C-alpha cells in the first residue's frame, strides 16, 4: 500500500548556507522531476524549494527504500556528503507528513508565522509537479486538501493579521491614516536603507509624488534616479512639509531637525490635513512633542518595532485556533486515506465473486435460453450485493476506528484474494472531487 512521505530541510534545522546549497533553481526543475520519475520506488513526487525550505513530497510503498533513494539523489544532485545531509534533514511519514504539509501551507511552519507567500509557493510547486506528470491521484488529493485548509485558515482565523516588518508596518500605518495610498505626497529626508524600503513599498501600492532630500545632494539624486522621483536641496525641505502627507526621515543629524513649532505652523497651513512622520533615525530626527499635535502621527523606529512585536505576538496567539482547525482537516484526510486503503480489498473481493458468478453462468448456459441466463445473472448479482453489504459496512467502520487491517487479513486469507488480479482502471485511486484541476484552489498569492 502506498504511503505519503516528505523529506527535506527548513530554516529550523539547517542554516541558510546549507539551504542555499540544497535549493533547486526554477530552471532546473524539469530535470529534477525527470530524475524523480526515474526512481521506481517513488511513483509520485513534488518539489517545494523556497528560501526557507527544500522539501520533496512523495508517495511510496517502501518508505525506507524511498528515503534511501532520495538521500542518494540529493547527495548526488547537490554534491553533498550523506552524513552532512542526514544531520539536517527530516523524513516524515503518513500522518506526520500530512500534518507537516498542512502546517507548511498554512504558514504555521514559516519563519514569520502566518506569512502570506508560502501558500503561493506551495501552489506553484504543485502546479509545476502536475505539469511534469509527477503528481497523480494521491498527491493531487493531498495538495488540494492542504491548499484548501490553508485558505480556510486565512478566512476563519486571523493568523495573517498585521504587518511584521518595520517597513510593512510603516506602510500599514500609512494606510490606516490615509486609506488607500494613491495621491499622497512623500518627503524623504536622508537616504537610509529602511527608509528606501518603505518608499519602495509605498510606491508599489500607488504613490508617485515623492521628494528626496539628503545632505549629500549626489545621494538624493541617485535615489531620485532609481525611483524616478524628484531630488530637492536639503535646506529647502521645510517648504515641502506643507504639501507632504508622509515624511520618512532617516538623517544622521545629531539633534532633532523636525521641531514642534515648525510642524505646528505647518499644520495650520495644511488646514489639519493629517501628517504621518516616520522617524527611522537614531538619534531621532523629530521631537517627541510633535506627536501631541492634532492630526500628526509620529512613529519612531522603536514604535515601529513595538508594533511588529505586538503583531507577531497576536499571530502566535492565533496559532492554537489554527492547530485545532488543522487537526480536524488531518483527521478528515486520514479517514479518506483509510477508505482508499480498503478499496483494493473490496474491489478484489467483488472481482472474486464476479468471477465465480461468471463461471456458474457459463456452466448453466447449455440448458438455458439467453433470457433465462440474463435473469439468473440479475438474481446472482442481487445475492452478491446483499451478502457483501453488511460485511463491507463493518469493514468501513473498522477502518474509521483503526482496526481495519484485521478484516483485510481475514478477507485475504479466507477468499485467497492474493491471487485476484485487478485491471489498471480498477486499481485507480478514486478521486472524491472529479473535475478539479491541479491548483484550482483559488488564492491571490503568487509564488515568491
Amino acid at each position, binding site marked *: 500500500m502506498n504511503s505519503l512521505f516528505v523529506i527535506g530541510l527548513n530554516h529550523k534545522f539547517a542554516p541558510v548556507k546549507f539551504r542555499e546549497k540544497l535549493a533547486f533553481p526554477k530552471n532546473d526543475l524539469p530535470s529534477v522531476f525527470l530524475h524523480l520519475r526515474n526512481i521506481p520506488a517513488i511513483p509520485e513526487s513534488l518539489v517545494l524549494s523556497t528560501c526557507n525550505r527544500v522539501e520533496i513530497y512523495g508517495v511510496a510503498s517502501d518508505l525506507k527504500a524511498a528515503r534511501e533513494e532520495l538521500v542518494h539523489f540529493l547527495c548526488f544532485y547537490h554534491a553533498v556528503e550523506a552524513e552532512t545531509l542526514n544531520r539536517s534533514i527530516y523524513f516524515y511519514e503518513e500522518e506526520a507528513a500530512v500534518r507537516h504539509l498542512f502546517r507548511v501551507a498554512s504558514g504555521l511552519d514559516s519563519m514569520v508565522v502566518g506569512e502570506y507567500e508560502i501558500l503561493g509557493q506551495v501552489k506553484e510547486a504543485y502546479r509545476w509537479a502536475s505539469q511534469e506528470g509527477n503528481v497523480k491521484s494521491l498527491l493531487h488529493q493531498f495538495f488540494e486538501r492542504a491548499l484548501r485548509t490553508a485558505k480556510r485558515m486565512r*478566512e*476563519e*482565523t*486571523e493568523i495573517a*493579521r*498585521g504587518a511584521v516588518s518595520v517597513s510593512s508596518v510603516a506602510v500599514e*500605518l500609512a*494606510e*490606516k*491614516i*490615509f*486609506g488607500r495610498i494613491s495621491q499622497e505626497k512623500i518627503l524623504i529626508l536622508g537616504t537610509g536603507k529602511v527608509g528606501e524600503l518603505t518608499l519602495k513599498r509605498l510606491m508599489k501600492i500607488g504613490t508617485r509624488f515623492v521628494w528626496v532630500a539628503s545632505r549629500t545632494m549626489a545621494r538624493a539624486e541617485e535615489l531620485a534616479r532609481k525611483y524616478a522621483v524628484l531630488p530637492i536641496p536639503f535646506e529647502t525641505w521645510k517648504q515641502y512639509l506643507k504639501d507632504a502627507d508622509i515624511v520618512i526621515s532617516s538623517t544622521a543629524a545629531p539633534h532633532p531637525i523636525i521641531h514642534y513649532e515648525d510642524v505646528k505652523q505647518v499644520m495650520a497651513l495644511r*488646514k*489639519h*490635513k*493629517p501628517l504621518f512622520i516616520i522617524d527611522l533615525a537614531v538619534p531621532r530626527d523629530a521631537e517627541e512633542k510633535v*506627536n501631541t499635535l*492634532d*492630526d500628526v*502621527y509620529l*512613529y519612531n523606529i522603536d*514604535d515601529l518595532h*513595538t*508594533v511588529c512585536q*505586538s*503583531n507577531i505576538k497576536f499571530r502566535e496567539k*492565533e496559532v492554537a485556533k489554527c492547530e485545532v482547525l488543522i487537526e480536524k482537516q488531518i483527521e478528515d484526510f486520514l479517514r479518506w486515506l483509510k477508505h482508499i486503503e480498503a478499496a483494493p480489498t473490496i474491489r478484489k473481493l467483488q472481482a472474486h465473486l464476479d468471477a465465480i458468478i461468471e463461471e456458474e453462468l457459463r456452466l448453466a448456459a447449455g440448458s438455458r435460453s439467453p433470457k433465462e441466463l440474463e435473469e439468473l445473472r440479475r438474481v446472482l448479482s442481487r445475492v452478491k450485493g446483499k451478502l457483501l453489504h453488511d460485511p463491507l459496512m463493518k469493514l468501513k467502520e473498522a477502518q474509521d476506528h483503526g482496526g481495519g487491517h484485521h478484516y483485510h487479513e481475514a478477507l485475504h486469507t479466507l477468499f485467497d484474494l492474493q491471487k485476484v488480479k485487478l485491471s489498471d482502471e480498477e486499481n485507480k485511486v478514486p478521486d472524491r472531487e472529479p473535475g478539479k484541476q491541479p491548483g484550482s484552489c483559488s488564492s491571490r498569492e503568487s509564488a515568491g
Partner: protein
Amino acid sequence: MNTHYIFLAAINGFYFLSFALFVLHFFHGGKAWKPWANRILGLGFLASIVFETVQVAASGSLLPITTLYQALFFFSWCMVLVYLLMSWKLRLDTFGLILLPLVLAMSGTSLICLKQPPAPTYSHNHWFLIHILTAFLAYASFALSFVGALLYLAQNRGLKSKKINTFYHKLPSLEALESVVYRTMVFGFPLLTLALASGFFWTKDVYGVFWRWDPKFVASTLTWLIYLGILYSRYVSLMRGRKAVMASLFAFFCAMLTFLGVNFFESNVHNFLK
C-alpha cells in the same frame, strides 16, 4: 396591544442577534459572522416594515407617530434604513457595533412606552408628513455620522497612543471614517433643511404664522445653522481631521437635544412626553 408587543419584541430580538454577531465578528475574528449580522439586521428591518404597514393600516394615518414609543421606533427604523442605504456605497464594517446599541436603545425603549396614550395627529396635512419623514431621516443620518465620529476618535486615539489592538486592525482608516462622517452629514443636511422648511409651512397652515418662539423652533434652527457651519468649513477646507469630527459630535448632541431634549422644556407642538 399584545400583538404589538410580540412584534416589537421579535424586531428587537433580530437587532440584538445582529449586534451579537457584529461583536463576534469584531472580537472573535473570522469573516463568516459579518454577512450573517447584516442579513439578520435586514430581517429585522423587513419585520419593521411589516409592523409599520400594519400600524398604518390600523390607524388609518399615513404616519402614525403620535406617541414617544412610535417616535422612537420610527427613529430606530430610519437609522437602520440609512445604515443599509449607506452601506451600499461606504465601507461600514464596524458601524454595527455602535449603531445597533443605539437602535436597540431606541427600539427597546419603545417597548416600555407602549402603553402611552396617543397625542393628536396632524397626518392629514402634507407639510406635516414631509416634516416628520425628512426630520427623522436627517436625524438618522446624523446618528450614523455620530457613530463614524466615535469610531474615528477610537482609531485616532489608538494611532496616537501607538497601541495596536483589535480596534486598530478592525476599524477602517481615519480617512474612510472622516469621509463617512462628512458624507452622512451631506446626506442629512438637505433633509434637515426640508424638515425645517416644511415645518414652517405646516405652522403657517395650522397657526397662520411661519415662526413661533417655541423651544423646538429655536433649537432646530440653531442645529441647522451648526451643521451648515460645519459643512461650509469642511467644503472650503477650513476644518479637517479631529477638530471637524469633534464639531460633528457637538452638532449631533444639539440635534438630539432638539429631537428629544426639548420635550423636557415647554413646547406646544412637539411634546411626545405629554
